[in-house]
């Protein structure tokens, strides 16, 4: 019986995360279409693209076919690389609108090495997993995966810290709120990455449920980030 509840919870959480991510993608696209300035419009379209990858990743993961599982696995790598590039573009945008053009945690020096580390490690893990299926059952593979997720945790924690610094420094309240929400979404992502492996070892089914709920939180913060790109008012119907 408890297994059924876990199943139900997981299905519900997966559906909710996908729905929130879809709404975030839709809102981002409509807001992006309405904005004139390139810096803000690009933020909206980036967010929409990320959410579409997120939804495709979630939907492909739900399928039982081997092809869909492969697609889902590859979309995971695409998502995290896209997320890092998006973070980089946000740092650049924040610098562009900052009157005094301050550096943020030496990001301009570290951005290329960080991206190279994430891309290289993702490619290695993806290729090894696909080319040597037997190796995936070995202890060495487990160590490689733990090292990979730890690396991702470190890189995205640093990225999250950069977002927090931007949010604290920028004078632009819109950008401040947007970056703050994005920072929370990234923190959820770091939590997801750091909890996924240990929970997967201890109790895989519970791990799936917990991480899917974290995915809901991440999708929600991405949605809030989209909605904070521009204050949205309600039309007051006046009597003329």
């Amino acid at each position: 019986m408890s297994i059924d509840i876990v199943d139900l919870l997981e299905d519900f959480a997966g559906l909710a995360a996908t729905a929130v991510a879809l709404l975030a993608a839709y809102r981002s696209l409509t807001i992006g279409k309405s904005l004139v300035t390139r810096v803000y419009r690009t933020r909206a379209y980036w967010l929409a693209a990320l959410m579409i990858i997120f939804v495709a990743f979630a939907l492909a993961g739900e399928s039982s076919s081997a092809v869909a599982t492969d697609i889902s696995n590859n979309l995971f790598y695409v998502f995290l690389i896209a997320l890092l590039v998006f973070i980089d573009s946000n740092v650049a945008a924040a610098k562009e609108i900052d009157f005094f053009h301050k550096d943020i945690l030496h990001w301009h020096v570290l951005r290329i090495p960080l991206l190279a580390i994430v891309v290289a490690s993702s490619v290695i893990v993806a290729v090894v997993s696909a080319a040597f299926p037997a190796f995936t059952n070995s202890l060495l593979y487990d160590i490689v995966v733990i090292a990979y997720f730890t690396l991702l945790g470190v890189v995205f924690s640093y990225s999250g810290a950069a977002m927090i610094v931007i949010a604290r420094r920028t004078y632009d309240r819109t950008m401040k709120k947007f970056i703050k929400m994005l920072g929370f979404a990234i923190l959820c992502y770091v939590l997801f990455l750091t909890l996924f492996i240990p929970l997967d070892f201890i109790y895989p089914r519970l791990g799936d449920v917990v991480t899917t709920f974290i995915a809901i939180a991440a999708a929600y913060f991405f949605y809030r980030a989209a909605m904070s790109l521009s204050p949205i008012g309600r039309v007051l119907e006046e009597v003329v």
Partner: protein
Amino acid sequence: MVSTGVPSLDNVLGGEGYPDRSAILVEGPPGIGKEVLCYWFVRSGLVQGDYCLYATHRPVLDVVRDMKGVGITTERVPEWISSTGSNIKLDLRDPTSISVNIKQSVHSNKNRRVRVATDLLSPLLVLNAVELMYNFWLQLLSDLKQQDCVTFALAEEGMHAPNVLTTMEQVFDGVIEMRLYEEGLSITPLFRIKKMLGLPPLHGYFRFSVSSTGMEVTPRVH
């Protein structure tokens, strides 16, 4: 009257545009398109042979690139006051020098009609006390009006507390607010005219769209 540079907005404002010797404030969140209204205002002045002064906290090249992006090119160029790429240098930490530079430039062209466009209101408000800035703009705008000048200023809604913007609105003769509005599931950019010298209160909202061929304003029908 001074054309806004957007014929459909001129119609909304009674057919001819902004009042003579006035100061217009356009407020709204970043990215909504305030600058585009400003660019068309400057372009209209350049085409008509007015002296146009553009005081900006952004590099001149960025502004020019932005103008081209919305389809604005003219043979004439405005006089620039900027920290990068202009003859008259801008120092955001020195409001007095900004005021002196603007007034000197305007005064040296006193035989022509003058248009001043600026996005300095928000950065100056961030760096200085509200009371100081209220007096600064009150004095500057008053002096500019005496020189037959129409001033067009931009304010970033997200950078100031609402009461600060309301305070600054008092200094201006016309206030236009631009922002996104939720209409069902869709989100639409609208603007409303909060006040305009010489016009009765204008109720309702107006839709606007920006493309590389121009800006279009239409009343919102509900």
